[in-house]
């Protein structure tokens, strides 16, 4: 790609979304200025900006962001650690797959919100119930995606591995795992988005910190400017998390799965 073409692509990728954001902001500002919304239902952009500044100055926004990210990190990491080995076993073993797959599908279709009563009864309040809900929301998804990926590794790879004399462990780490990595990265990218959505819902119930709590606390105080402030932070961090996982697709040894 020429330098000029690359510059144009960057402008397109960043400039167009920025232009749409500015247009939405202008429409919001104009609608508020024209008094289109009943009092107290939609905050003005200026009020939201001030709320942001206040939250940033007092450090509460940062504390809430850190609290939410902490819960997501634990819930997501434990789900990844548990789900990938399970998915690898299910993908390679017909009998285990036949026995467990219907149950994984059953639990995958249960909304994490349905688990909230159990989460509170079992774990009380604080971080553990939120982490538990994030774990549930992502574990079954990742396990299912890993199962599908491991089950679709071409048989010829295992024949080549057999001829190369690779041990079982080497086959797992040098063949199966790299072969499923592109599909796994896509699954993790989807799952981290789900984890981030669930943490906000979980924090509205069982904790007294985090962006979900910030939003519900602001609603209770009729501070719609703070509600929007929390929503913008949730959306922006969600994009950031997605970008981190999207970056993984650029690693040389997995790029094949995204370029073919």
């Amino acid at each position, binding site marked *: 790609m020429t330098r000029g073409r690359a510059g144009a692509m960057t402008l397109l990728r960043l400039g167009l979304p920025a232009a749409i954001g500015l247009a939405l902001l202008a429409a919001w500002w104009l609608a508020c200025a024209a008094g289109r919304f009943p009092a107290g239902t939609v905050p003005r952009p200026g009020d939201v900006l001030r709320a942001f500044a206040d939250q940033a100055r007092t450090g509460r926004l940062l504390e809430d962001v850190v609290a939410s990210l902490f819960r997501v990190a634990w819930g997501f990491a434990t789900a990844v650690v548990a789900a990938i080995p399970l998915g690898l076993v299910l993908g390679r073993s017909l009998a285990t797959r036949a026995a467990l797959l219907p149950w994984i599908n059953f639990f995958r279709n249960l909304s994490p919100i349905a688990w909230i009563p159990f989460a509170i009864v079992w774990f009380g309040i604080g971080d553990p119930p939120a982490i538990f809900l994030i774990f549930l929301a992502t574990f079954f998804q990742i396990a299912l995606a890993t199962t599908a990926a491991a089950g679709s590794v071409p048989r010829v790879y295992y*024949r080549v591995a057999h001829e190369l004399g690779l041990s079982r462990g080497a086959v797992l780490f040098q063949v199966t795992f790299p072969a499923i*990595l592109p599909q796994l990265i896509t699954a993790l990218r989807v799952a981290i988005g789900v984890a981030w959505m669930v943490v906000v819902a979980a924090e509205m119930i069982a904790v007294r910190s985090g962006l979900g709590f910030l939003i519900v606390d602001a609603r209770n105080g009729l501070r719609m400017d703070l509600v929007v402030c929390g929503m913008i932070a949730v959306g922006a961090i969600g994009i950031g998390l997605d970008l981190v996982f999207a970056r993984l697709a650029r690693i040389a040894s997995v790029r094949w799965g995204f370029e073919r």
Partner: protein
Amino acid sequence: MTEAVLELRGLGFEHPGVAVIDDLDLEIARGDFVVCVGPSGCGKSTLLALLGGHLHPTRGTIARRGHSRTIYQDGGLFPWLTVRQHIAQGLPRDLAPARAAHKIDEWLEVTRLAEFAHHHPHQLSGGMRQRVELARALAAETDILLLDEPFAALDYQTRARMRRELASTLADRPRTVVLVTHDIDEAVQLGDRVVVLGPRPASVRRIIDLPSGRPRSPTTPGVADAAHAIMKELGLT
């Protein structure tokens, strides 16, 4: 007579309820280039999987003296590895790092892939991918090379070039080769012997010897007659 590297005695293989190979006898001597041809779906690839030890006979025996490597039609390369890493994978494990690096460079030169050493398979053409497979298989210095329609996915010109390259590479580094193909031209241009298999369940219908020297052109004496004989056995004339 040269020592037999592969000896198949009364070989049979069945998938549940389906006989794929039945009572197949064949002896392949060290350094032989044997080509198996047969009707589509007759069990040629199953035979190669049996020779490679990926499947086990349900009847009869296979005596294999030495290790084998297989080159597949397509998809035998790991997409996450570079050309260099593939060749390294083929080398004997006990090679010292400096010697291994030298060997890899040598194979990159032989297969004319030096400038693509850090490319991944999806960045290569079909012919280049087959050259990587060939380099990995030959770098292993195993005794037996099994070729499962290795050039079938290539266009006509690349196929012809790959045949010549295979023949010249093997001339310098002789191996016992078993090639399965549906391409009769390929069979008569490359093989020392062509084994014509019957329809499923496959068994040896006829073995046709070819004149020495490789690769042969269609005008090489004996080649046209051999091709005609194969076609006759397959019911194509």
